[in-house]
């Protein structure tokens, strides 16, 4: 066991897979000699050399296309898109190429690649470098979508993503890079499509993803201590595949559902989950499901403004308390 940062977990996760399999290669902007703009790939170039860890021009389409061509023909590329906002300039690969080639070719074409990207707000970068765009990817058939919240999950889910035969979009949260967590020694391999109950509880289920997970946990402690409300916190971890059994099981136990989403409200991941719960577990619910999200606005840059728009522990506490008392 060792305590490491989320940032170092990314390095360890990539290194673990590159050591295991020579077909794993890594490309992106500033990822090699500079060690990544978030310092999340430091040392990989030195460890694995210039043939396997490669700097690219600022050409997101070339990065994505090259990853796909390499994946189709036998490599297992990890591509980095520095900020997830930049998906918008290479979205053809995410929406049209990675996820549809297998289907359109009637199973001939494979696409085993991972796109890692820095997602989410909290760095005061403004509206084009702060978005949570996991829902852009969740809606596309053929992709898998993962967003870890802890160093241990970073390593385990990254390993699972690299070993997965499908294209996986791997969202790292920029505001989690400096956070720390306990990580066991040795190889870690997790399973895609599994949610995790991080805090058992009986009064309400709170679903969260990435940066919203520590906030949900903090809110749950406060709800217990100050209001006697015992919340179950579930880290969704994987949006596709989606572990609905864990979520439905939790709702069956607590009878109340809250989602904590960093994405803007419309078509956020929680909307789909709430609709499934309404379809399949309506009579398990003792009250309406409630979505706690960023409002439907572009993200502002200023400290005080950005802090207000993201769901905070205080907002979660207040929303759950009022909802359960009404």
């Amino acid at each position, binding site marked *: 066991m060792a305590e490491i940062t989320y940032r170092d977990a990314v390095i360890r996760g990539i290194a673990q897979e590159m050591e295991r399999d020579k077909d794993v290669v890594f490309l992106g902007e500033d990822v090699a000699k500079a060690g990544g703009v978030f310092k999340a790939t430091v040392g990989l170039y030195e460890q694995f050399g210039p043939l396997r860890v490669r700097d690219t021009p600022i050409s997101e389409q070339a990065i994505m296309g090259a990853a796909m061509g390499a994946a189709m023909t036998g490599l297992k590329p990890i591509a980095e898109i520095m900020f997830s906002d930049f998906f918008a300039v290479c979205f053809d690969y995410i929406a049209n190429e990675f996820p549809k080639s297998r289907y359109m070719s009637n199973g001939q074409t494979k696409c*085993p690649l991972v796109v890692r990207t820095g997602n989410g707000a909290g760095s005061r970068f403004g509206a084009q470098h702060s978005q949570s765009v996991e829902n852009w990817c969740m809606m596309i058939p053929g992709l898998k979508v993962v967003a870890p919240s802890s160093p241990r999950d970073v390593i385990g889910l990254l390993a699972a993503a690299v070993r997965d035969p499908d294209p996986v979009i791997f969202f790292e949260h920029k505001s989690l890079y400096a956070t720390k967590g306990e990580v066991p020694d040795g190889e870690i391999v997790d399973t895609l499509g599994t949610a995790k109950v991080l805090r058992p509880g009986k009064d309400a289920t709170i679903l969260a993803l990435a940066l919203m997970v520590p906030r949900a946990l903090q809110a749950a402690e406060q709800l217990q201590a100050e209001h006697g409300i015992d919340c179950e916190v579930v880290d969704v971890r994987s949006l596709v595949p989606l572990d609905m059994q864990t979520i439905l099981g939790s709702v069956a136990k607590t009878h109340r559902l809250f989602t904590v989403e960093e994405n803007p409200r419309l078509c956020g991941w929680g909307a789909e989950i709430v609709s499934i719960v309404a379809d399949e577990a309506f009579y398990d619910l003792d009250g309406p499901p409630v979505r706690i999200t960023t409002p439907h606005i572009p993200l502002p840059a200023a400290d005080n403004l950005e802090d207000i728009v993201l769901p905070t522990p205080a907002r979660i506490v207040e929303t759950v308390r009022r909802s359960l008392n009404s």
Partner: protein
Amino acid sequence: MATAKDRAQAQAGSGLNDDIGEAKRLDLYRLQVVIREAEQRAYDLFLQNLVKGTSHLSLGQEAIAAGFAGAMKPGDLSFCTYRGHAHTLARGVPVEKVLGELMQRDNGLMRGKGGSMHLTSEEHGVMGSYAIIGAHLPIACGAAWRAQYKGDKDVSVCFFGDGTTNIGAFHEALNFAAVWKLPVVFVCENNLYMEYTPISDVTAVPHPAADRASAYGLERIIVDGNDADAVYRIAQTAFDKARAGDGPSLIECLTYRHSGHSRADPGKYRPEGELERWKERDPIKIYKERLLQFGVSEKTIANIDAEVRKVVDDATEACKAAPLPPIDILTTDVYADGGWAWRN
């Protein structure tokens, strides 16, 4: 322009058994006739409402597909556009499989799941036909990167139209391939029109691909795309360079499509007489004349024509008799486990 010079060279060479040779020439002729007959049949079947959706034909552009495929080795990879029937057929994919896909029948190359614009046959090295302009240039780079990384000797060959030279992915891919020195050959089929608009109306330079080559440190290469010998020779040169580790090439092939952009386009935007002038330079006509000039008998040529016609006729009948794809393939192969499950 290299056109006249190449033609002169081809004809001034020692004849049938020059560097290309009789067997290869008959092969190149046959490939062009297969494409011509199959594309013409696709058009006829469309008029009978048996080819559904859309289709983008390569009538008039056969020499490019034949010349490049003729120079490829097994294991070399083709990346095509939605105008990709020709390149797919040229790698040896059976006519029935292609027509079946155009007719969206169960005997089609992808059992009707892809359609005319996405022909793929990995066993023949046809790594897909891409319908988003420019998307496959970076993808071809990736396949070439794999070859470079693994020490494989195959070349990735990426075909696209003149319109592609004005999209970002073209420029990203060219720079990327040049910087990484990848074994990829970019082939621009300049048929003078981006869909309905003359390419010269929307492009800053006269030669949309070749005039951009120098920006990426590449040689300016223009070839007569209606002369299969010229195409074959330039392909060999580019492939040799790629296999030697000397990086990518960008080749602009001058040609003309005899039909409109797609099935819905009668091509009325073309000036009077232009099509007729280009038909004088029909690649199959040119090649037939050359074969005769080199001493191949009328009978040999007629036999090839008849044999190809029979293949296309038989394929047509087989496709007409083939069932529609079964409903149960609707949800197969979304994910690698064969299914479509996104939740438990």
